[in-house]
C-alpha cells in the first residue's frame, strides 16, 4: 500500500507541473485544460455519492446546470457577477446547487440501487425540461451568452488567468472533499456503502447521512456549473442534458470510483479523446466507446486501480506455489 502522503505528494506534483506547463501552450490547450478542471469538480462531486456513499446518480448535471444558468441569468439580465460580485455568484451557485439537491434528495434518497439511478435520471430530465422550456428566463434553445468574463482587477477574459482561477477552485474543492471523506462523517458514509443495514442497526441515521452527502455533492456541482458557464461563455440546455450526467458517471468509473482524483483523470481523458482526438481523426467515437467498454470489462476499479492490480498480479505470481488452486480469483 502506497502511503497516503506519497499519494498526496504525487497529486500536488502533478498539479504544479500542470500550472507551469499549461500557460505555455496554445489557447486551445489552455481552454481544454480549464474545461477538464471544471468538469473534474463535477466528477469529484459525483464521486462523493458514487465512490464514498454507493449512490449512483444519473442526474448530477442538474446541479451543474442550475449553477451555470444562475451565472448566465445574473450576468445577462442583471449584469451581476462580472466584477468583484463574481464571488457572490460563486456562493449563490453553491447554495443553489445545494438547495436543489436538498429538494431532490427528499424524493431520491429513499430509493436505492437501480431505483436511485432511475429517479435521479427523471429528476435531471425535469431540470432539462425547465431549461428548455422556460424561454423568458433561460433563452430556451438559443441559450444565454455571457459576452465577457468577470473583471475585478484580475481580468478573467485572459485565458491563462482564468485557467489559474479554475485551478485554484479545483484545488480548494479537492482539499475540502478530501477532508470530508477522511472525516468521521466520511468514514460513516463508507460504512453505509459497505454495510447499510449494519450501520442502521448500530444507530446511525442512514437516511440523513446519505441526504447530507447528496446536498454537499449538489453544492460542488453548482460550483462546477458557475465555472463552466464562464469557461464557455454560453449556457444551453445541452449542458443539462442526460448525456452530461452519463459523462460524469463514466468519467468517475473510468478514473476509479472512491478515489476523488480518479474522476479528474477520467474527465481529462474523456475530454482529450472527445475534443482533441476529434480534431485529428473522424472515428474518435469508436475510440471513446471502446475505452468505456474495455475499462468497464477489464478495469472495474478504473485507471486508479491499475497499480493495485499490478501489485496483486505480482503477489499472485510469487505466491503461486503456495496458493490453492482457484483461490486467486473471486
Amino acid at each position, binding site marked *: 500500500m502506497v502511503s497516503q502522503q506519497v499519494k498526496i505528494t504525487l497529486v500536488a506534483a502533478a498539479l504544479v507541473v500542470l500550472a507551469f*506547463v499549461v500557460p505555455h501552450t496554445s489557447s486551445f490547450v489552455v481552454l481544454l485544460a480549464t474545461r477538464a478542471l471544471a468538469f473534474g469538480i463535477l466528477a469529484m462531486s459525483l464521486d462523493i455519492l458514487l465512490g464514498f456513499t454507493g449512490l449512483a446518480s444519473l442526474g448530477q448535471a442538474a446541479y451543474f446546470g442550475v449553477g451555470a444558468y444562475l451565472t448566465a441569468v445574473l450576468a445577462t439580465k442583471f449584469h451581476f457577477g462580472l466584477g468583484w460580485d463574481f464571488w457572490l455568484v460563486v456562493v449563490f451557485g453553491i447554495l443553489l446547487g445545494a438547495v436543489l439537491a436538498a429538494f431532490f434528495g427528499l424524493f431520491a434518497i429513499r430509493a436505492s440501487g437501480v431505483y436511485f439511478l432511475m429517479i435521479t435520471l427523471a429528476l435531471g430530465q425535469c431540470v432539462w425540461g425547465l431549461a428548455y422550456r422556460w424561454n423568458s428566463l433561460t433563452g430556451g*434553445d438559443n*441559450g444565454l451568452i455571457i459576452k465577457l468574463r468577470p473583471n475585478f482587477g484580475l481580468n478573467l477574459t485572459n485565458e491563462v488567468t482564468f485557467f489559474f482561477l479554475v485551478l485554484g477552485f479545483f484545488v480548494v474543492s479537492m482539499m475540502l472533499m478530501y477532508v470530508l471523506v477522511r472525516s468521521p462523517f466520511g468514514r460513516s458514509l463508507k460504512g453505509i456503502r459497505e454495510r447499510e443495514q449494519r450501520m442502521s442497526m448500530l444507530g446511525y441515521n442512514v437516511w440523513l447521512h446519505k441526504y447530507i452527502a447528496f446536498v454537499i455533492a449538489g453544492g460542488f456541482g453548482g460550483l462546477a456549473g458557475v465555472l463552466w458557464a464562464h469557461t464557455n461563455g*454560453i449556457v444551453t440546455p445541452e449542458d443539462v442534458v442526460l448525456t452530461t450526467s452519463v459523462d460524469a458517471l463514466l468519467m468517475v468509473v473510468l478514473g476509479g470510483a472512491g478515489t476523488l482524483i480518479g474522476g479528474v483523470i477520467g474527465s481529462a481523458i474523456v475530454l482529450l479523446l472527445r475534443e482533441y482526438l*476529434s480534431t485529428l481523426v473522424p472515428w474518435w467515437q469508436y475510440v471513446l466507446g471502446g475505452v468505456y467498454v474495455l475499462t468497464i470489462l477489464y478495469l472495474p476499479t478504473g485507471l486508479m486501480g491499475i497499480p493495485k492490480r499490478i501489485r496483486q498480479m505480482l503477489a499472485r505470481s510469487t505466491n503461486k506455489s503456495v496458493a490453492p488452486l482457484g483461490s486467486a480469483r473471486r
Partner: protein
Amino acid sequence: MTNALLRKLSPLLLGSCLAVGTSLGSTAYSEELRIGFLVPTTGIYAQIGKDMADGFQLYVDQVKGDFAGANVKLIIEDEQGKPATAVLKASKLIGEDKVHMLVGGLLASTGYALAPESTRAKVVYISSIPSADDLTQRKLAEFPYFFRTGWTSSQPTQPLGQWACDQGYKKIITVAADYAFGYEAVGGFQKVFEDCGGKVIQKIWPPLGTKDFGPYISTLKADADAVFTLMVGPMALQFPKQLRGAGIKKPIVGGTTSYDEFALPFMGDEVIGDFSALQYSAALETPANEAFVKAYRAKYGKVPGYYAESNYTTALLIHAAMKKTGGKWPGSEEFIKVMTSLKVDTPRGPVSFDDMRNPVHNIYIKKVEKKQLFGYDKPELWNTVIKTYPNVSQFWTYGKEKFLAQPVYDRDFPPCKYCE
C-alpha cells in the same frame, strides 16, 4: 496520410500536460486563405454537417482551391452539435490554425456562441446556416466581425404570410416546433398575414422532436382555411402523413425546413401539392442552379438542399470578395466591408447584402410536385417554384427602423389576438 496523422498525433502522444510547441502555428504564406469550417460530423446532426461541408468543398474543388490567387486551406472541425464544443474548436482554429475566418455552425445556439468568440478574437465569422433573427438585427452591434450568408428565420415566412393572404386564406392555424427558430418563423408569418387582413386563430407548439402528432391534430380548429407548419428534421416526415391520415385535407403552407430537399426525398406522395417558402429550391430552373444540382448529385449522390446550397454559395461569395481584394487577405474589418458590398449571381439567384450584413435575396414560394427534372430518368418529388418575391430583405417591406423598433418575434409576439 500516415505522415500527416503521425505529425498530428505527436502532441497527443506527448500527453495532455506536455503539449508544448503545438502553438507555433503554421508558416504563413501571403497567398494562403485559411478557412475554419465548423460543422457536426458526429452525433445526430452528422448528415446535415456532411451536406454543409460537401457543399462548401464542392465549390472549392470546382475552382481547384484557387480564390483569385489565394490558395484555400479548408480545415473542417467537428462541433458535435454542441455550442460549447463549437467555442472550444473555434479557439483551436483561431489559435493553432490561425484561420482568417470561421464558417458554419448549425444550431442557432451555436451561432450565438460563435459570434462573441469572433468579437473577442477579431476573426470573421460567417454564419451560413444559423438563422437566429437577432444576430443580424438587435444584437448585431455587439458582433462587428459577424457576417451572414444564410438567412434569418423570419425572412422567408414574411413573404409567405403575404402570399397566403393573397390566396384568399382568412383563418390559419400555426403548428410549429416549440423553440426560438419556430417562434421567429411563426412570428414573421403571423405579422405579415395579419397586417394583410388574415387571422391566425390557433397557435400550437409541439415540443422539438415530436413524432406523434395525434394529440395536436385532434385539437385543430375545424374552421381554419389552411395550416402553417414549421417542422425540423424527422418531424417534417411525420406531420403531413399523420394530418392526412386523420382525414384533414386543409392546404399546408410550410415554413422553410418543413419541405427542404433534405427531407423531401424521404417523403411519401401525400405531400404533393403542399406549399412552402425558402430562399432556395433545388427545382429552380436557372442555368446556375441546374449546373450546381447536377454537379452535387453526381458527386454525392443526392439532390442538394439548402444546407448544401447555402455553404456552396458561401464559398462562392468568399471567392467573389477575394476577387475584389486581388487575392490578398485585407484584414477582418475590410473583408466584412467587401463582403457587404457584393452583388453576385448564385444558385439561389442574385444575392446582395443589407447594411446589417444579412443577405437580400429572392424568396421562392414552392409547391411539391412529382415530375422529371434536369433530365433525370425517374419522376421524383421536387419543390416547383410557383412565385418569386425578388430581393427580399430581412425587414420585408417594413423598413429597418420600424422593424427594429418592435421586439424580436417570440412565442407570444405578435400576440395571438384571434385565438380564444
